[in-house]
C-alpha cells in the first residue's frame, strides 16, 4: 500500500542547533504509526514541521505522492493534516459544542446577518460524541467538567469531523490515568478503522504497542528505523529510544519496571 503521507530526509535547524537531522517517516490510510522518542529527541519539532508550524530547512513532505509545502497550520489543515495537542486541545470554560466548532462555526443567514447556528452545532456535537462512545449530559456542558481523556476524544472527534485525513496526536495519553488512557486508545482504534492515517506520538512503549501498526523511533533528531507490529519487542523499542545500552543497565538495577 502506498503511503498517504510521507516525509523524506526532513531536516530542521534552529540557528546552530540541528533539531531534526534527517527524518524519514510515512503513514498510510487506516494505519496507526507510532512515533516514539524520549524527551529532547525532536518529537515536538517533528510535529510542528508536519503540521505547518515550522517549514523544514531541507527535505520533502508528500501527500499521496504529491509534494507539499505549507506556510502555516491552516494550510496544513487544508490538506487534511490535523494535529491534536496534548494541553491545548480544548478551552475548559467553553461548552463542548462551542469548542467543537471553534474556528469553524456553522452559520445560518437571517436577515442578512450571519448567525452562529447553535441548533446545528449542538446536534452534530451530540451525534459525533455518541459515535466516539461519550454520552454528554448536554451540548452546553463545559469542557472543564470532562475528564482529560474525554477532552482528547472531543478534540479527535472534532479533527475527524472537519475532514482530517492525517491525524497527528501529540502525547494524547501521557497525562492520563489508566481508564482514560484505555478510552483514548479505543478512540484511536475507531479513527483508524474509519480509514484515517494516525500518527501517534508518545514516549510510552506500552501505549504504542497497544494500538500501533508500525513503530518508528526518533533519537537525537534522527529516525532510528521503522518496525512492523510483531517484529519488535517492547524491550528493543525501549532501548532504541534511550539510544542503546544505558537503559538496559539501568533497567536491571530497577528490576525491569521502567
Amino acid at each position: 500500500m502506498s503511503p498517504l503521507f510521507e516525509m523524506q530526509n526532513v531536516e530542521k535547524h534552529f540557528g546552530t542547533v540541528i533539531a531534526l537531522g534527517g527524518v524519514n517517516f510515512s503513514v498510510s490510510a487506516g494505519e496507526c504509526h507510532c512515533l516514539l522518542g524520549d524527551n529532547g529527541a525532536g518529537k515536538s519539532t517533528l510535529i510542528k514541521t508536519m503540521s505547518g508550524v515550522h517549514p523544514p530547512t531541507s527535505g520533502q513532505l508528500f501527500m499521496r505522492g504529491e509534494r507539499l509545502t505549507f506556510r502555516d497550520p491552516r494550510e496544513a489543515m487544508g490538506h487534511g493534516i490535523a494535529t491534536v495537542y496534548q494541553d491545548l486541545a480544548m478551552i475548559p470554560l467553553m461548552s463542548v459544542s462551542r469548542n467543537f466548532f471553534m474556528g469553524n462555526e456553522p452559520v445560518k443567514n437571517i436577515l442578512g446577518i450571519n448567525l452562529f447556528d447553535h441548533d446545528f452545532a449542538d446536534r452534530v456535537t451530540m451525534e459525533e460524541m455518541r459515535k466516539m462512545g461519550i454520552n454528554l449530559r448536554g451540548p452546553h456542558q463545559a469542557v472543564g467538567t470532562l475528564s482529560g481523556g474525554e477532552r482528547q476524544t472531543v478534540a479527535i472527534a472534532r479533527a475527524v469531523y472537519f475532514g482530517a485525513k492525517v491525524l497527528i496526536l501529540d502525547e494524547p495519553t501521557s497525562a492520563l490515568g489508566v481508564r482514560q488512557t484505555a478510552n483514548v486508545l479505543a478512540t484511536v482504534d475507531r479513527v483508524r478503522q474509519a480509514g484515517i492515517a494516525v500518527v501517534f506520538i508518545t514516549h510510552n512503549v506500552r501505549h504504542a504497542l497497544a494500538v500501533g501498526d508500525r513503530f518508528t523511533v526518533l533519537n537525537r533528531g534522527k529516525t532510528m528505523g521503522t518496525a512492523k507490529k510483531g517484529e519488535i519487542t517492547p524491550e528493543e523499542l525501549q532501548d532504541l529510544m534511550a539510544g542503546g545500552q544505558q537503559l538496559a543497565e539501568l533497567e536491571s538495577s530497577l528490576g525491569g519496571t521502567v
Partner: protein
Amino acid sequence: MSELAQDERIKTTSPLRQALVRPELGSIAGTIVVFLFFGFLAYDSGMFSPRGVMNWSTVSAQFMIIAVGACLLMIAGEFDLSVGSMIGFAGMMIAIFSVTLDWPVWTAILVTFLLCTALGALNGYIVVKTGLPSFIVTLAFLFILRGFTIFFPQLIERKTIIGGVSDAAEGDWLASVFGGKVGEPVFIWLADLGLIDVFERGNRAGQPVIDGIPALIIWAIGLVIVGHFILTRTRFGNWIFASGGDAQAARYVGVPVNRVKISMFMFSAFCACVFATCQVMEFGSAGADRGLLKEFEAIIAVVIGGALLTGGYGSVIGAALGALIFGVVQQGLFFAGVESSLFRVFLGVLLLAAVILNTYIRRIITGEK
C-alpha cells in the same frame, strides 16, 4: 482530575450548582437585593418617583455604556485601563474641533470617533505584537491620553475647560443623536393624564418634570443588546470567548485571535467615545478631568456581572446589571441620605464578594481544586 470527571457522578450535580454556572446569576441576585434594600430604606425619598427613576437610570446608563466595552474586552482576555482617559480625551477633542477650530459638530464627532478607535487599535496592536500584559500597555495610555487632554486646551485656550459646545451643537443632526431626548410627546401625554408631575413654577411651568428619555439611555440599551447579540449569537462571539479562554488553543484551530483582540480594544474605545460625546453634549463643555477613574468603575461593573478577570467567561447582560447595581447604589445612598463616602466602602466590599463568588464558579466549571 476531580471526581467530577466520572460520568455517573456528573449527573448528581444539583440544580443549584447548575444555576450557579451562569455568569449573570450573581448580578441578577444582586439587583434584586439592591432594589429590595432601597425599597425599604429610601421608599419615601423620591427615589422611585419618575424623577428619581430617571436620575439613577441615567447614572446606570453611563456605567453601562463603558461596561459593555470593558466586558467584551475582558472576555477576550484583556483589560483597558485607558477608558477614563479616553473619555476625557474624546470629549476634549470634540470641543477643540467644534469650538476652537469651528468645525461643524457632526464632523468633530465623527473625526473624534475615528481618532479614538484608531487609538484603541494602537492599544490592541501593541498588546498583541509585544505580548505584554494589556494592564501595562493601557496603563501607559491612561497617562499619555490624560496628559494630552490637559496639555491641548492649555496650549490653545490657556484653560482646562472648553465651553460653548451647546451653542455650536444647536441644530446639529449628529449632536442630537448623543445629546437629544426621545419620546417627548409620550411624556407630555403622561403628564396630561396626571401620571407624571409637572413643574408648578418657573419658566418651565406646566411642562412635565421628565420631558423625554435621554439619548444616553438609548445608547446604553442599544449597546447592551448589540454586545449580547454579538457575543452569544455570532461566530465572532465564539472567537471572543475562545481568544480569552486560551489564545494558543484558539490559534491552533484557526481563530484569528489577534484580530479579535484588536477589534475589542477598538470597541472599548468606541464605547468610551460614546460616553464622552453624550457627556459633552449634556454639559455643553469638555473638561480635562472628565472620566477620571471610569476604567475601574467599568471593570467593577463587569466583574459584578460575573465575568472572570482571567478572560474567556462572562456576560454582557451581567455587566449591564452590574452597572445598574452600581448606579442604583450610588444614587440610592444619596436619596437615603447616607454619607456619600460610604459608597466607596460599599463598592469595595461588593467587588470583593463578586470576585470571590466568580472564582468559586470558575472552579465548578473547570473542575479545578
